[in-house]
């Protein structure tokens, strides 16, 4: 039987993956290929996510501008209609006591401008 000293290494060569260099190289190459593919896929996703935020910001800004435009147009329409609308003129007269102009009165009564 062989005698050991504590400085002797344990012989792990039977479980060393490098004992078969061909198989070892295949493992290394497969790992590198898969790591590169995974990293590139990850980078693409990251780029998409990076662009997602500015794209959302632009979309939100456009939606806001469109909404403001539509709302503004609606207010203008209401205001324009209000000045010549019989109900509006009469309500305002009743609530505030502010007498409408002669032109408004004539308009309400159906006279042409």
């Amino acid at each position, binding site marked *: *039987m062989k005698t050991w000293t504590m400085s002797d290494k344990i012989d*792990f060569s039977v*479980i060393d993956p490098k004992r078969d260099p061909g198989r070892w190289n295949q493992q290394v190459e*497969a790992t590198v290929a898969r790591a590169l593919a995974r*990293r590139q896929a990850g980078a693409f996703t990251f780029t998409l996510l990076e662009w997602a935020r500015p794209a959302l910001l632009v979309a939100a800004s456009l939606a806001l501008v469109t909404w403001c435009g539509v709302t503004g147009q609606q207010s203008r329409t209401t205001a324009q209609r209000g000045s010549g609308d019989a109900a509006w003129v009469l309500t305002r007269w009743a609530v505030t006591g502010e007498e409408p102009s002669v032109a408004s009165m004539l308009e309400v009564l159906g006279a042409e401008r």
Partner: protein
Amino acid sequence: MVPVDDTIEELVARVLRGEPRAFDTIVRQHLRAAYVVALAVLRRPTDAEDVAQEALIVALERIDTLRDARQFRSWLLQIVRHQALNWRSRRRLRDVGREAPAEAAHDASPPDALAFRFRLLEAMAVLGPTEREVVLLHDLEGWTHPEIAEALAISVVMSRQHLFQARRKLRTHLDSPNEDVDHE
């Protein structure tokens, strides 16, 4: 060990830039250490090979999250340990009611070598997890005690102590392999 041209910081920076050669170098330098740590947890070489490869792929995929490139080695080994433990949990569920797969079935080594391999793997069961990591990193991967201590977050003295204990237990078991061992 693979000759080191670049420091680990330079290699990590090159990996972050997506240079394929840096991936190759980092895998060649670290795959066997990853295998050794996976083997310390799993005690089945073919499982350890699969886990080591997957752990390196995961590490390289998440390398942006590594705060200090100098810590790459210990960070990688943590990932390996985590993956190996997950693998072991899944294996336990998978192997319920089944025979453990013949580990050396694909191996074309001579019968003596296969017998020694079987005894060695069985003997490793008598070691604690850290003892297994230390003795494998030192005697198979060729790391020094300061390198082991840094990677495993233990002192150099503890690394020496673990190596001493591991070698003693392994030799005792290999000389008289009939002791009961924990097969997980």
